[in-house]
């Protein structure tokens, strides 16, 4: 016990040490010794063990693309004609969706078209989906490749799963409309017609995105919605097959670095890791595959990149890659269940598993937990010291044997009692009540933020401003109003301390849970919040202004502003529009893509931060 007592004064140092230990641990994750090499966990995939049967030439594919590009007819009609000629079953699906919620909010129409190659010897119980997004302003040149492939597949006898070629319109909306109809579910803001035909349970899928008619290398997109990721085996299959067919492959435009010094190696891998995490923090998907992952289907996006300096690898190679991935998936006997679902990618050949990346975060969260524990212990020691003192006085009185002395003691006790009553009068309420009132108020404010965008239109009419500015104004107003409302209820020192302990624990649990779902977001929040909140301990009056400043610096509003400052690349003129844009984007992504970021900030993060804000304005004592 005495050891612990000695540690108590140094707890801040320990916490800060833990915090920085966590950060250093995280930075070291991409070190050669810690990151692991990718390997195949599912043996059934057998990637690249079969000869490619794809026999179309570059010219043929080019001609198919030209046919589809025919300006006199709709792309969907051409696709339908071509697939029917190839002997596929072809179906259409119409859908409507709402893309924008702020400003120009209107319902749009779209059409999906899909062809099914029925596997000869299966009963349509399983299938693979190859998704080719129809880009509304550009041409997706992968169409020619997959149409040539579909025609050949039809004649091949080794397909054990049906293959669906899905040409979806309007980005992820089309894919979602199709998948919702496939599974008989409905999700706002997309509404879709019924599908006339299906091909059983979708085992896996991939999207091919080819905006130019040449390809230098393939960039793989893995991030799904709200931190979801495809099974690592699927990623490995794609990487392996692209390499087998002699193309370069990258993830987030990062290649495997050449042999270099240890420092350069760690730097480049760390860069790739951070790039991936940056995408994940936003909670949106980087491609159509996100919709598949959301529906429980492992999926990935192949995005081709053309760089004239690198040369052109040609359609045929990409065709063989697509064929190879399909054949690997065709080999699967079970759904993807082995390998990793939680990982970060420092390069295409390495991964960092959940077992490695959680401990650094754990260290950081432990810092907050230890701080909270230390406060509880401190309070206990103070209590026990007080009782010790009381006991000592009692013992002293025991030694006095005269009755008068006892009377004196009784008087003393009376006065003590009176003093205590006075104390109670000073503090309006016991700490528990104060905690409850503050927490409930802060969460009510969270609800207000969450529902504030409902009034966007009213505000824009009232203040005669565009809707995007009105929604930003609304959110900022509610945010600031919350700060004033929460401080209007003044906490006592005791209440502040108790709330501080509760909030620290609350923060630790919240970030821990978020990190399990979306590690990148959890890590980002831990880096932003743990250190400032450790320093916010109530009772240090002389730093109060500084503490308020620190607390305000980590408010959701300030973080948004800081991110905008960072993204506008030092062009102060655009900061304001960036700031407005930021709010609109976060809100719209929550509406159209069901990303949790806005909901999370409004309902959980903002109330938590309000609690810390309340603590900074609690009564304090000057340390002597």
């Amino acid at each position: 016990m005495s050891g612990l007592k000695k540690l108590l004064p140094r707890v801040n140092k320990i916490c800060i040490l833990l915090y920085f230990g966590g950060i250093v641990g995280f930075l070291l994750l991409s070190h050669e010794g810690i990151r692991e090499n990718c390997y195949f966990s599912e043996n059934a995939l057998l990637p690249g063990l079969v000869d490619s049967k794809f026999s179309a030439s570059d010219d043929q594919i080019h001609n198919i693309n030209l046919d589809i590009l025919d300006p006199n007819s709709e792309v969907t009609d051409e696709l339908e004609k071509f697939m029917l000629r190839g002997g596929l079953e072809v179906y259409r699906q119409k859908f409507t969706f709402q893309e924008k919620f702020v400003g120009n909010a209107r319902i749009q129409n779209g059409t999906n078209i899909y062809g099914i190659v029925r596997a000869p010897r299966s009963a349509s119980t399983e299938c693979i989906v190859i998704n080719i997004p129809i880009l509304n302003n550009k041409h997706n040149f992968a169409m020619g490749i997959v149409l040539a492939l579909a025609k050949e597949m039809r004649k091949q006898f080794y397909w054990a799963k049906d293959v669906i070629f899905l040409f979806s319109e309007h980005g992820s909306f089309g894919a979602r409309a199709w998948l919702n109809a496939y599974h008989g579910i409905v999700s706002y803001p997309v509404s879709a017609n019924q599908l006339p035909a299906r091909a059983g349970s979708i085992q896996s899928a991939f999207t091919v995105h080819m905006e130019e008619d040449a390809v230098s290398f393939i960039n793989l997109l893995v991030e799904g919605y709200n931190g979801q990721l495809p099974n690592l085996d699927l990623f490995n299959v794609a990487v392996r097959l692209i390499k087998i067919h002699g193309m370069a492959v990258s993830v987030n435009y990062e290649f495997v670095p050449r042999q270099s010094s240890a420092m350069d190696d760690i730097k480049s891998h760390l860069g790739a890791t951070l790039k991936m995490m940056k995408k994940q923090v936003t909670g949106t998907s980087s491609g159509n595959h996100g919709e598949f992952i959301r529906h429980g289907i492992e999926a990935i996006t192949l995005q081709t990149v053309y760089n004239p300096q690198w040369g052109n690898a040609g359609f045929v190679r990409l065709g063989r890659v697509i064929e190879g991935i399909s054949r690997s998936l065709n080999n699967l006997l079970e759904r993807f269940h082995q390998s990793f679902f939680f990982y970060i990618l420092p390069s295409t050949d390495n991964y960092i598993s959940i077992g490695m990346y959680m401990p650094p975060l754990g260290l950081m969260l432990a810092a907050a937990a230890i701080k909270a524990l230390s406060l509880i212990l401190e309070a206990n020691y103070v209590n026990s010291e007080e009782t010790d003192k009381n006991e000592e006085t009692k013992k002293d009185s025991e030694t006095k044997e005269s009755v008068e002395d006892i009377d004196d003691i009784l008087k003393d006790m009376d006065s003590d009692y009176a003093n205590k009553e006075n104390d109670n009068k000073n503090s309006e309420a016991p700490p528990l009540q104060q905690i409850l009132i503050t927490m409930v108020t802060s969460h009510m404010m969270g609800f207000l933020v969450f529902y504030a965008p409902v009034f966007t239109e009213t505000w824009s009419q009232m203040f005669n401003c565009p809707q995007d500015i009105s929604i930003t104004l609304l959110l900022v107003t509610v945010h600031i109003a919350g700060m004033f409302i929460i401080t209007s209820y003044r906490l006592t020192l005791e209440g502040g301390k108790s709330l501080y302990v509760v909030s620290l624990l609350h923060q630790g649990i919240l970030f821990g849970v978020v990190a399990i779902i979306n590690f990148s977001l959890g890590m980002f929040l831990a880096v932003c919040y743990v250190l400032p909140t450790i320093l916010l301990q109530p009772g240090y009056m002389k730093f109060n202004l500084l503490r308020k400043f620190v607390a305000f610096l980590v408010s959701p509003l300030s973080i948004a502003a800081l991110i905008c400052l960072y993204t506008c690349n030092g062009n102060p003129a655009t900061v304001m529009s960036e700031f407005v844009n930021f709010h609109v984007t976060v809100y719209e992504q929550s509406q159209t893509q069901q990303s949790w970021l806005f909901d999370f900030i409004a309902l959980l993060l903002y109330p938590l931060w309000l609690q810390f804000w309340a603590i900074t304005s609690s009564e304090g004592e000057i340390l002597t």
Partner: protein
Amino acid sequence: MKLKLLVVWAIFIQSVVVHCKEMDAYHESVTMDVINNNKLYSFFNFTTIWDFSDKFAPHHYNLFPRTLGELILKYQVAELHFTMTQGLWRNHQWGLPHASAPTGAQLWVWFDGNTVDVDKNWIGFTNALSGLFCASLNFINKAVTVTPTMSFFPTGAFEGGYPNNKFLRYGTLSRENLCTENLTPWMKLLPCGSRAGPASLLNPSQLHHSRFLSIGIHFMTQCQSPDCLKTFVELQQHISVVFDIGSGTHQDFTLRSLFLHLIKPACPLASTSVIKFKVPSDASISPPIKKIEEFYLVQNLFELTSDTNYKVKLNKQHLETIHIPEGITSHCFPTGLGLEGGLRCSLVNNLPKNVTVVFFQVVPWFLYTQLHTLKLETESGHRIQPDIVNFAPAKIRESPHKLELVFMLLAQEVTVLNIQFTRGFQTWTEHPPDANHGYYISPACLTIPTVELGNLSRDHSSKVQRIFSEALLITIPVPDFSMPYNVICLVCTVIAVAFGSLHNLTTRRLQKVSPKHKSPLKKKIDWLLEKICKKALDQEKNPSDTR
């Protein structure tokens, strides 16, 4: 003695031959339908008829396969229907089949009216049949078996008047594949094997290069006259195979190009033996066939003198126009994500009239199906009230859910049937190999009176047509099977640690140690104990001190 035996033997054989001439018949036929100019549907049918003056209780088998006859006798089977199918019959493109069959294995049996323990006979029979056909029919256990009430009436004469469905058992295995090992025993049941007649085309390796392959065995008792005073037994063996002729090079097909065999002249034991073709009017067949019966070109195989290769030349221009036959189709699929799910069937009636159908669906016990979620409405939103609802909820690990409905499919409408279920858990020993593959819901079955379908049906002899939808692959929560390994590791560690210390304790001899050898720590503890005891004693001596 020997001579006597020989005489008896000779007399016996003679009598049998006479008997057979009167009573036995064997008909073999193959029907070849060109569908949509890109598929060839070949239907082989082999019917053995055995006329009995009395009950079916033979001591000697002639044309009838003995292996099957013995099982039928032993397990008191009155009617047997067994099919094994690879692939899916695509109703919306191919129309109705000659003999419908769901994906995988399907078995339904009517037992004799005086069977004592139907369940025991059923289990025994499935096991025996699985041995006969080298198929895993023994997996049709009580958790798979149901007793339908309306969908599977006996097709022949059933003893004892109106059938009581307590003698009926039905089971399907959708995961069961049809392989050569099932095909061989099936062909061995034929009187001529695959040596003559239509059966000579059956080349296993080619049959598996098809789009659809189904074998079936149907045993039943038939009436000789309308009053049904006299009956005979009938064994139908059929095989359906659909080849792709639209893709690639062999647009014009010959028997050799599809089966790699030529057709041989008829089986000498057969009463009739024919090959029939139904081809588009502008197609040509060589050698030419002149006889026409009900849209079919018919060739008697007894008239063939040698192995023949028929060549069919099609008009290629039809290829792109896919003719979608009108009629009734059903398409089922699982709905929902996560733990909650459902089953939805869209039943299309393209006919110009309303048709009353029986819908039959079996759902495994671990998908907890709720009847109150049953919704039946047309796509235009019109609610349909089923005439009869027959739902038997599952018993966990005992029996599956059974749903049987009678309702009307409105003309030119799509009727959507919806029912919800919750995915349940299974213990880790209950999962089959490849647990992450998923589980199958057996295909839904629509039973429609043949009268309603008129010319659309290919099989006019049976009173009802059955339309099966897809077998549905469902995923349910699967445990991490590497966990037992982790548990074993953990348990081993615990045992090692516990065992080590226990062993240490139990095998050591405990001895008294003189105080000289006391360690400093022990001394300290002893001193502490002593002190505490002293204090306690002191307090007991003068309790007045404490207040």
